[in-house]
């Protein structure tokens, strides 16, 4: 090799060593998408500073406000897999003397995650019973449920199992209380996206950049969170509602269970004679009074109320909450 050749060889070696060294030191600070806290918030078992309670072996992100011994309102979030962040305006009930309890259901929000195979409807209703038992200070303390969307379905499933245990029920747009109604409503509410729409593109194009196995919760939750950036315009919301984390595995597991078991949560509702406050929104094009009448028909004593200037997630937004709060408060006060 001549002198020029040797110099070229040495230069290449130096450049290669520099690139390798830079890559190595750079990679040491690189991040992993499946690492807790990088792309989605840590859950209660990953971050001990989060307020939590242990119920039936699950560490649930939970908070309670208001006098501990006064009538309790347990707030149930939507999803399945959502969280209670968007329902925090309901804290106002604590100022009216109620004990207001929030919790993220297992696998949802900031609560502990569980594998797909661990989800059963009985586990979810038992968990609600556990939360009530945790916060209840005496057998005479009244318990009200305020459920929104999936949370209203869960509340109805619980009342269907335990008609005598709940002293009042506020339901906000449950998709349905029999599974076929749930499927019909979900299908209707997401029918605005065509195959060439931005929302469909946003959801599907991502699949080539991030993939996650069933056990890789961080990746799946993050992907699912990104899907929510484009919401169906049919729902009529004032904007994008706040959340912490969407529990993908929980969501998929509960829908799979529904498809397999086709539950009917109305079989014992005729035994629940207390008046139910049933709220539906003016702007949700997939719902409406007719659907509200159909879904609530299992209850013998129902007051239907249309929340004006609001969409499906009305408790999250100013107009929706301002229009519904006085009605909810009056209802609870009448049963207190």
């Amino acid at each position: 090799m001549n002198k020029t050749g040797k110099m070229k060889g040495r230069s290449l070696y130096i450049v290669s060593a520099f690139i390798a060294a830079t890559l190595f030191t750079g990679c040491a600070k690189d991040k992993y998408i499946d690492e807790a806290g990088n792309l989605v918030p840590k859950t209660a078992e990953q971050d001990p500073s989060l307020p939590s309670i242990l119920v039936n072996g699950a560490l649930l992100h939970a908070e309670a406000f208001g006098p501990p011994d006064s009538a309790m309102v347990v707030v149930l979030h939507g999803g399945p897999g959502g969280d209670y962040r968007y329902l925090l305006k309901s804290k106002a009930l604590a100022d009216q003397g109620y004990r207001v309890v929030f919790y993220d259901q297992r696998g949802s929000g900031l609560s502990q995650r569980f594998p797909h195979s661990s989800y059963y409807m009985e586990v979810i209703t038992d968990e609600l019973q556990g939360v009530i038992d945790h916060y209840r200070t005496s057998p005479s303390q009244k318990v009200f449920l305020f459920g929104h969307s999936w949370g209203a379905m869960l509340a109805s499933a619980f009342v269907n199992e335990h008609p005598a245990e709940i002293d009042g029920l506020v339901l906000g747009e449950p998709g349905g209380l029999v599974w076929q109604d749930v499927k019909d409503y979900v299908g209707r509410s997401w029918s605005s996206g065509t195959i060439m729409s931005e929302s469909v593109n946003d959801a599907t194009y991502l699949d080539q950049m991030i993939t996650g196995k069933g056990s890789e919760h961080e990746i799946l939750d993050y992907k699912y969170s990104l899907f929510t950036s484009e919401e169906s315009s049919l729902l009529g919301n004032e904007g994008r509602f706040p959340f912490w984390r969407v529990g993908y595995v929980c969501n998929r597991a509960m829908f799979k269970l529904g498809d397999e078991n086709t539950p009917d949560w109305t079989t014992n509702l005729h035994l629940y004679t207390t008046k139910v406050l049933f709220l539906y929104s003016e702007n949700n094009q997939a719902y409406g009074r007719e659907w509200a009448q159909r879904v609530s028909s299992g209850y013998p004593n129902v007051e239907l109320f249309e929340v004006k200037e609001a969409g499906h997630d009305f408790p999250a937004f100013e107009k929706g909450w301002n229009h519904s709060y006085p009605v909810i408060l009056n209802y609870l006060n009448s049963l207190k």
Partner: protein
Amino acid sequence: MNHIKPNTMKTIVKIILAGMAVLVTPGFISAQTINWGSLGKEDKHVLNLNAGWDYGVAFGTGYGYHFDIRSLNMPLVLDIGYSFPSGRDILEDFKVKIGGKISLYEIRNIHFIASVYGVFRRYENDFVRMVNFGSDLSAIIGYYRPHWFVAGEFGFDKAVVSNFRHSSAYKEIYPGVKDGWYVPPMGGNYHFGLQAGYSFRQHDFYLSFGRVTSQDWKTTPMVPYYAQVGYNFRIRTSGHKPSNATQVP
């Protein structure tokens, strides 16, 4: 509109290295589907238009250069392809593939083809802007005649390294989200399917379709299929004698 932050040496070096890495690592829907039976030595340039389902309704175009490596008797086409999905904001998301395909062996009109591509992808929605460097490697075996072909393909599309930059909307949801470069495991999908096409004069029309599954072989993308219809126009260079392949029907 979000952009890549190009102001650090580390970032630049990473981009270059990732680009180099993807060119030598294993790949999805080929940027161009070629009828090797009609590709003559005088067909030096291949222009391509395509449309189909590629993780969304997508449209693409490409250019390929055909190398006549007589000593090896292995036709090689180096090409670049650009595609974008439909939607409201068509410039937010796109994919560029650079690489090539080579017919490694041919016997009785059956070709054994390998294709290797480096892939640059961009994705943006209201929550995040991602750029990704990846690779796309495929193996294709097919029966190629001057006027038609049918082939099977199997490949792996890997997202190697990605940069995330989140919007203020997502930072309201999660203020602690960490922007920056993320390294493997990012994601990867296998794909397998069929190709078929019809050729005449300088024109190829083709169809490819198949299934996509994630790298764990258990989960799938939201739509676990791909499909593409495309058109190639081969430009002949003067001074080359037409090959037998293009003369014999």
